[in-house]
């Protein structure tokens, strides 16, 4: 079985995000960039399936600037087999990403697409679902556990009330939640080996997709700041304050 894993290069989750003073976005100059953490979980899941012998090939794809090749190398070092870089410098909206991925799926014919449930930059939580819809496939979003059978997959999902299991026909799209697995760190020998693995370079035009944004971002601003309050000295003072505030 072939698996396709789309990964996104985003600001590292440990970096404190700063909004630019001209309100055009957040400052990405000289900021550490990494693979979207949910996508790391997706790569890990694919690699584990390969180690179990269920998966024969893992293709990773990233849509972004030239530096997104580093993100692909990280995935290759974790155990993916080859990469596809679709070069695009500006913001690419989730629907355009889904259209590019659809074209890649039609070429590569994977039986399963695994990707993160959302990217930690735009927090859209759309791409996997959109891709599944465009392909007419089933989906298992916010995955907590995956069980592959022949021709179908049981996916346990993290939902508001607890956990829900759906059975999807293959091919299908799965998006990962936090507790599906714990991604590995790539070992040095594997990082070296990854340098020799192939990455094909493409453009959105190669797939006939126009990536011009269709929504207009008017501005990006700082959220309203909460002022730090006061420190109380004891539990009884805390209860006094909460009673005065009328919340208990």
């Amino acid at each position: 079985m072939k698996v396709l894993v789309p990964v996104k290069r985003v600001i590292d989750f440990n970096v404190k995000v700063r909004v630019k003073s001209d309100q055009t976005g957040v400052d990405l100059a000289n900021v550490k960039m990494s693979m979207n953490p949910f996508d790391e979980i997706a790569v890990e899941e694919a690699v584990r399936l390969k180690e179990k012998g269920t998966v024969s090939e893992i293709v990773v794809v990233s849509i972004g600037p030239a530096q997104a090749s580093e993100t692909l190398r990280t995935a290759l070092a974790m155990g993916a087999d080859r990469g596809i870089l679709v070069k695009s410098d500006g913001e690419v909206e989730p629907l355009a990403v889904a259209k590019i991925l659809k074209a890649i799926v039609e070429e590569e014919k994977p039986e399963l697409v695994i990707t993160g449930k959302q990217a930690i930059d735009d927090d859209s939580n759309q791409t996997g679902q959109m891709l599944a819809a465009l392909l007419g496939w089933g989906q298992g979003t916010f995955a907590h556990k995956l069980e592959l059978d022949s021709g179908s997959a049981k996916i346990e999902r993290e939902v508001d009330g607890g956990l829900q299991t759906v059975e999807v026909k293959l091919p299908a799209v799965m998006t990962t939640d936090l507790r599906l697995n714990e991604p590995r760190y790539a070992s040095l020998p594997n990082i070296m080996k990854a340098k020799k693995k192939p990455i094909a370079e493409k453009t959105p035009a190669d797939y006939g997709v126009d990536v011009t944004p269709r929504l207009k971002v008017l501005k990006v601003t700082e959220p309203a700041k909460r002022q730090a309050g006061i420190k109380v000295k004891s539990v009884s003072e805390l209860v006094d304050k909460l009673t005065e505030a009328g919340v208990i």
Partner: protein
Amino acid sequence: MASLVLAEHDNKKLSDATAKTVAAASAISTPVHVLVAGQNCGAVADAAAKITGVEKVLVADDALYAHMVAETMETLILSLADKYDAILAPATTNGKNILPRVAAKLDVPQISEIIKVVSPDIFERPIYAGNAIQTVETKLPKKIITVRITGFKSPGEGASATIEKISPAADPGTAKFVGETLSRSERPELTAAKIVVSGGRGLGSAENFKLIEKVADRLHAAVGASRAAVDAGYVPNDYQVGQTGKVVAPDLYLAVGISGAIQHLAGMKDSKVIAAINKDEGAPIFQVADFGLVADLFQALPELDQELAKRGR
């Protein structure tokens, strides 16, 4: 033209998230219709018909919709989409699961988790885990939107909308519901509770989380947790408050043994009053807390329980 709001419910009870989404829809395009898709969900439709601002409730009552599986919901919503220029759902796991499929098939981008309607074409939404707010404009003829319900007030009950039965749409047959494990609780629902008491890694074990539950029960509060506490297995995943878990805005949020990672703050910083108990004076949670108590939670929690009991709670 009109808005269509996807109702959030469990076939028995309508979630308050629906009314808050109606509030957002009313500011975008009127009249507002609500779609109740479920099985034996008549009581839910009756409740939806009462929400102020709702003109009509469409009910698709069929086994196909018992669990709102995204693939079947997609075809149902698409069968209605022509009549609406805005289609909205609360940003619950159902809304997030279903709506992007509809957007993709209609070839329009989705605007996720809006917190404010600036004008019918302009919306605010948090990005980067709430560290920045994006103001986004659409000029497209259709708007597909999920709504972060903490940004909107429930419009109350005052309508008596017409209820219309609609036929189920085609079943694509690509996915089916198998089962679920829901956390049963007598406590209020996390996203609707007036008081939330949350515990973090500082609790140290699932057993110790009972200290949180005891105080929560005394306050008739919901119980929440930080990602660290969920990852450590102290409580189930649906307790998680944060950017990737649930977003809450109760009157009182009491954070105990939670350091206050950005990710967690994004899920609770709109609470009216925040109180925090943590033994680390430098914990970031104190930067957003109205009332902070630097103390060992293993002493403070039993003491808090006793203090509340003493005052008749």
